[in-house]
């Protein structure tokens, strides 16, 4: 894992991507620091970081676009996947390299609130909370980017798809509120989800019986829940979409609240996508 990590870190700085990332990041920090903090005489640093998260759809692809796509294009994936490293070690090495660069960029910005501190009182808990949220959202979106880069051997496509995905997650909260909350809509949505799970199962196992059984069980469970307590279904679309909206929880942190549930949410979100990445690679071997 450390070998992959070291290689990726070196590649960031031989390929300019590392510099590009840091440059964009620090430029954004500089702009928002002067408009939000200095311009408004506001010691609360959280708006600066919050504004940067709106640019994650540019920053994250810079970090993740080439991680796996370039290996596939250069055929060096054959070297990695025939080496005595496990797939998970390779994925984690790459994920951690991207995250460390993100961490480096974030740590540099700590200078700014420290600068403000010499001119007055700092809302320390809010700022610490904001930084934690910033890093967690970063980890979650980098995991999504890593996952997308394994799906293609073209880094441009990976970059654009990652942009789209992160932008979608960013507007997800607004989109979610537009969704219908009626029971029927929820039922249809859950039904589609069950079918989706069955389809994925069939696709990965090629076992039609298992897929049909799962679909029937799911349908049975949905029907059972429907007849037992209708309330369970109301607004289920919104709840699912909100789960995907990783930016929505930023505000809790910005108020200085470190909610364990939110932290677990982000970590499990990142872990899910790291796991999916490894899974896609493993599955590709069996195809």
């Amino acid at each position, binding site marked *: 894992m*450390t*070998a*992959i990590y*070291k*290689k990726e870190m070196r*590649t960031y700085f*031989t*390929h300019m991507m590392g510099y590009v990332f840091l440059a964009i990041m620090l430029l954004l920090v500089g702009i928002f620091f002067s408009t939000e903090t200095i311009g408004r005489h506001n010691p609360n640093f959280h708006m600066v970081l919050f504004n940067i998260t709106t640019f994650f759809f540019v920053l994250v692809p810079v970090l993740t676009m080439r991680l796996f796509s370039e290996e596939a294009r*250069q*055929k*060096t*994936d*054959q*070297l*990695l*996947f*025939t*080496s*005595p*490293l*496990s797939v998970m070690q390779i994925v984690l090495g790459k994920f951690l390299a991207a995250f460390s660069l993100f961490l480096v960029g974030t740590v540099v910005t700590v200078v700014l609130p420290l600068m403000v501190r010499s001119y007055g009182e700092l809302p320390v808990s809010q700022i610490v909370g904001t930084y934690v949220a910033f890093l967690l959202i970063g980890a979650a979106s980098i995991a999504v980017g890593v996952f997308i880069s394994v799906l293609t051997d073209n880094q441009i496509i990976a970059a654009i798809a990652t942009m789209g995905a992160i932008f979608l997650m960013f507007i997800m909260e607004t989109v979610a509120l537009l969704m219908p909350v009626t029971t029927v809509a929820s039922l249809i949505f859950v039904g589609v989800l069950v079918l989706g799970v069955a389809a994925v199962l069939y696709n990965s196992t090629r076992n039609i019986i298992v897929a049909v059984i799962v679909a029937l069980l799911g349908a049975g469970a949905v029907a059972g829940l429907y007849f037992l307590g209708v309330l369970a279904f109301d607004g289920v679309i919104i709840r699912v979409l909100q789960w995907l909206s990783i930016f929505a929880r930023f505000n809790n942190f910005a108020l200085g609240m470190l909610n364990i549930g939110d932290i677990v949410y982000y970590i499990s979100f990142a872990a899910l996508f790291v796991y999916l990445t490894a899974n896609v690679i493993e599955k*590709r*071997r*069996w*195809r």
Partner: protein
Amino acid sequence: MVEVKNLTKIYGKHRALDNISFSIAPGEIIGFLGPNGAGKTTTMNIMTGFIAATSGEVTIDGLDTVAEPERVKASIGYLPDTPPVYGDMRVVEYLNFVADIKKVKAGRKEMLQDIMRQLSIDDIPKRLIKNLSRGYRQRVGLAQAMVGQPKLIIMDEPTIGLDPKQIIEMRDVVKNLGKKHTVILSSHIMQEVSAVCDRVIIINRGKIVATGTPESLSKGLQQGSIKVRIKGDPAAINTALAAYPIISGITPEPSPEEGVTDLILSGNEGTDIREAIFNCMSNNNLPILLMKSTEMSLEEIFLSFTSSPDGQLRGGVSEASAYDSRPDAVGSVTGLRQQDLGQNPISKEEA
């Protein structure tokens, strides 16, 4: 060393490997021969654990590739058909990275020095790989496979894209590797394989068509037929040949010049028809411009193999002694020559 049992790989509906089995003894140099798409790369990818088989198993040094992938992979060095090199790394940097991922610790520096010297890339340790020529890149790729002294080295088309001098160098390298390692290499060039390999496995359409030493196989490939170029029109030549029943097979070839006829002539098995051809032509005052024995190259055999479905070809001279499996396929090899060689682009180039 290597034990492959009933290996099958199915991509969607395409059966890339169909139940193949073979075994390789320690220290052997094995050549995989076959046309593009025969399943060579698939077999190698499965052995190295890059892809998984649909069914069947591969054990390397007694270890199952699926059950203990990490230990198996540690004992294999793999050079895929495209050298898996990072263009933005320097040669030494790259080999150090490979040593890292292969978890080589002790004596790394000496080992890398030694490998680079063996492949004569020790003069370019600081060059960026993307600036290297194809031949050098291939050697860096091979150096990568040798890092960590794996017991088994697998090379997919190691000489493709190299110039003749580099090919000869590569052969020497492979021969040297064979002293310490078990080597498997694939190729679609017979000479290539016969020059270095102890044993050859010929595959086509996912099946093993033949195995044997290069000598036994090439004996089977020499058909005893003669290519001639004669000054004169075909009708006269045919009349002349009719008087010599010993020349039993006559296949016209496209002729390169006006007033000249190209033919492939063959006799019955074990007969030498060269003298008969000379006598026949000189008696009829037909000057022989060219006379050479045709050796069937593997490319020719496989081109014909892939262009006609099995079993539809006329069976010909029995050459089965060289092939220890699949008599139907062997029949095809000899039978198809008479039909198909005429349209074969490779044999035209010989002229």
